[in-house]
């Protein structure tokens, strides 16, 4: 299958390491991800809370530019907005017309959109990934944290089971890690309230961190830039507010998979993580 990559804004900023590790893993697996030229922001939450038409027009403009190729996405928020636009535009000729009046392009809502986890688990396949693993993550106990927008609502994303997704767990197993079952896979981290009302994020990330520890995890693995930064960067603030030190490394799945594929830590952006993962990796001999 032929893809075109929509990085999304975070991968050029706070989640630069997600972008870097995605490119490294793709190269190692022979997956070509050429970037969509002149892509623009999907509008994210700000657009859908403010202007429903703009919230469809911004993704539509990008999807129309993909030239019929499958759009590959890493950020869960971008994924949600692109999929929502496809869902609404393809379901209603009236919506399609109104979006076209804004973008100047009659887009039919049918450009396929896949998250990198879907590409890895379904298109490339777990067997092929396992065959590329040279340094299996043996003995590493991970909890996979999917957050909200990959699996919800399932009628729109069609990603995996909405309450108990397994795609990331399965990729981690293929990388040799021990994927622990836990109940907080799709709980919310508070997203952009990290900026507008951090008390929401501290309360929610504390719940997730506490459950990860109770499940016996060595680390958390994520697939969304906002989830990652909230769970990673806010651990210090959670410690200050609640007196609970977690010190749990929070990886992108591409970083752990990259290690399993034998890639150098420097090529995976591990230094960008706030909670230093090196002691854990050293203890596990990776």
């Amino acid at each position, binding site marked *: 299958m032929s893809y075109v990559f929509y990085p999304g*804004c*975070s991968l*050029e*900023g*706070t*989640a*630069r*390491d997600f972008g870097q590790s995605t490119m490294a893993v793709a190269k190692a697996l022979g997956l070509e991800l050429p970037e969509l030229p*002149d*892509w*623009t*922001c999907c*509008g*994210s*939450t*700000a*657009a*859908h*809370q*403010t*202007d*429903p*038409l*703009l919230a469809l*027009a*911004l993704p539509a*403009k990008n999807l129309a530019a993909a030239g019929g190729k499958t759009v590959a996405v890493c950020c869960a928020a971008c994924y949600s907005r692109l999929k929502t636009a496809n869902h609404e535009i393809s379901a209603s000729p009236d919506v399609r017309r*109104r979006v076209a*009046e*804004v*973008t*100047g392009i009659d887009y039919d809502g049918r450009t396929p959109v896949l998250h990198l986890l879907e590409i890895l688990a379904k298109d490339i396949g777990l067997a092929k990934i396992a065959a590329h693993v040279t340094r299996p993550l043996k003995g590493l106990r991970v909890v996979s944290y999917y957050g*909200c*927008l990959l699996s*919800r*609502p*399932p009628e729109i994303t069609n990603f995996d089971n*909405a309450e108990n997704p397994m795609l990331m767990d399965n990729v981690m197993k293929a990388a040799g890690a021990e994927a622990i079952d836990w109940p907080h896979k*799709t*709980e*919310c981290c*508070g*997203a*952009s*309230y990290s*900026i*507008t*009302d*951090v008390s*929401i994020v501290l*309360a*929610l990330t504390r719940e997730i961190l506490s459950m990860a520890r109770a499940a016996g995890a060595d680390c958390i693995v994520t697939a969304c830039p906002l989830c990652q*930064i909230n769970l990673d*960067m806010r651990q210090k603030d959670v410690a200050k507010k609640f007196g609970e030190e977690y010190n749990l490394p929070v990886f992108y799945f591409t970083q752990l998979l990259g290690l399993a594929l034998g890639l150098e830590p420097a090529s995976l952006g591990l*230094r*960008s*993580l*706030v909670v230093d993962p090196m002691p854990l990796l050293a203890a596990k001999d990776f």
Partner: protein
Amino acid sequence: MSTMRETRLANEAADFVALVEAESGAPLAACLQCAKCTAGCPVSARADIKPHVLVRLVQMGQRDEVLSSRMIWECTSCQTCTTRCPQKVDIAALTDALRRLSRAAGKVVGGTTVPTFNDIFLRTIRRLGRMYEMGLMTSFKLRTGNLMADVDKFPMMLAKRKLALLPPHVRGAAERKRLFERARRASERAEALAKAGGEKK
């Protein structure tokens, strides 16, 4: 006299229900008040109006109460309510609609910075095409006056290369500006139509 007043209030309530249904596409009458939305909501414990109560209040036409609620600015848009509703009431879309109506009616509850954040976010992507986190944070701090929040994070984020120093450059600035302008005009037209439709009923 009192009958006339009651009739007027009943009409206003019905207009509001029709307006919210049109804006959100959520079939409000289908709600059974099972409260599954509230049970799964990550912020329901702190909410002034819990999700299932929000739906009920809209059904009852309690316009001012819902539009000035704090809840609509604390909802994280996590979509759990929408996903789990057995009656397919899209509560997340309802909340989005209430946010827009709240702003349009000047009813936004004091203390929330979410509308300011959203405005700066959209202005940034209109101008640059993509997010510029340094610019967004600077504008947001200046507008909200909360200059010291998270300042300790900046050196760390810079050292860990989590912040791009320079704004992005994406071609097509003029076309982008026109797209935003056309969206704004279309939304204004739709809003006027929805209001007129509500008043006719």
